[in-house]
């Protein structure tokens, strides 16, 4: 913290900004610029996956049958719902309804944990069926074994990166929750909640694409 600059402004305003409006817009633009990097980041995974699915279509079709569409759909439902609760949390943060905001944040965290739980169940199935592309990888159909390994590499890579983002999301939303709980007067700045929301919706969008790409491969 630099010594000067704070006295003249309200406590929420960082010294480099002129007013709260400028600060909010700076954060929104900054957050979107950050999301652009995230889009490109996941975009590459999608591109690699697309290329290899086109090149090894038969094998990928065969391998994708090992995934559980039911669980995938359930998780899509869970994550979309969490996006709704997150959006509501932002809304209530904006209108300063502290209790509703706390409830919505808690619900979002709960749903995120459900998502991770379902993911853990799926992963453990893959492990017990030797479908994790590590040392013990074993695939029933030998003609597809090599390419199926590629499929599962991409499956674990993509969903793993996504799960990591969900986990980070849980931490950040948890932080927002603590912030709201501590803020008895209900005066806290809503910008951090809004930023968290943008991040969370982005994580949701990634899954919106992952689900059909991985679970719904046409023959």
């Amino acid at each position: 913290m630099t010594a000067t600059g704070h006295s003249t402004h309200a406590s929420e305003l960082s010294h480099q900004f002129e007013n709260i409006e400028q600060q909010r817009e700076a954060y929104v633009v900054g957050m979107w610029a950050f999301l652009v990097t995230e889009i490109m980041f996941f975009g590459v995974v999608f591109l690699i996956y697309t290329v290899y699915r086109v090149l090894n279509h038969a094998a990928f079709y065969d391998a994708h049958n090992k995934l559980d569409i039911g669980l995938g759909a359930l998780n899509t439902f869970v994550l979309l719902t969490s996006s709704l609760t997150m959006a509501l949390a932002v809304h209530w943060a904006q209108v300063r309804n502290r209790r509703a905001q706390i409830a919505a944040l808690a619900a979002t965290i709960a749903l995120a944990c459900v998502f991770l739980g379902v993911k853990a169940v799926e992963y453990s199935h893959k492990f017990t069926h030797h479908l994790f592309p590590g040392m013990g990888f074993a695939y029933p159909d030998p003609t597809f074994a090599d390419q199926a390994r590629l499929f599962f590499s991409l499956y674990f890579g993509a969903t793993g990166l996504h799960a990591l983002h969900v986990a980070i999301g849980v931490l950040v939303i948890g932080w927002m929750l603590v912030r709201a709980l501590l803020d008895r007067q209900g005066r806290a700045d809503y910008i951090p909640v809004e930023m968290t929301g943008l991040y969370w919706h982005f994580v949701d969008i990634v899954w919106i694409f992952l689900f059909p790409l991985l679970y719904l491969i046409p023959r």
Partner: protein
Amino acid sequence: MTKQDTSHVVPISVYLKAFVALMVLLVLTIAAAHLPLGTGVNSAVAFTIALVKALVVILYFMHVRYGTRLVWLWSAAGFFWLIIMFAITLSDYVFRTALRVRGW
């Protein structure tokens, strides 16, 4: 100084409508996957639905619909660039594998 802010507060009803749309699309995409339309058509349908879902999230949950021009620009930039990357890279693969015209 935490009084009024000029940012748009989106009413809850909008969020709920968006959510219902997302649910419908989710059911639709699973249903469509089970129709035998052929590899290309099925993939295209699944992708289009995903795109619409993503748009709903971006426009309403992420408030881009109510954002400034700057926010529009930056939210579009990433997807636009992704399209470029996909288009050029995939076209190389199309020429290399599917078409496999002599030499090309």
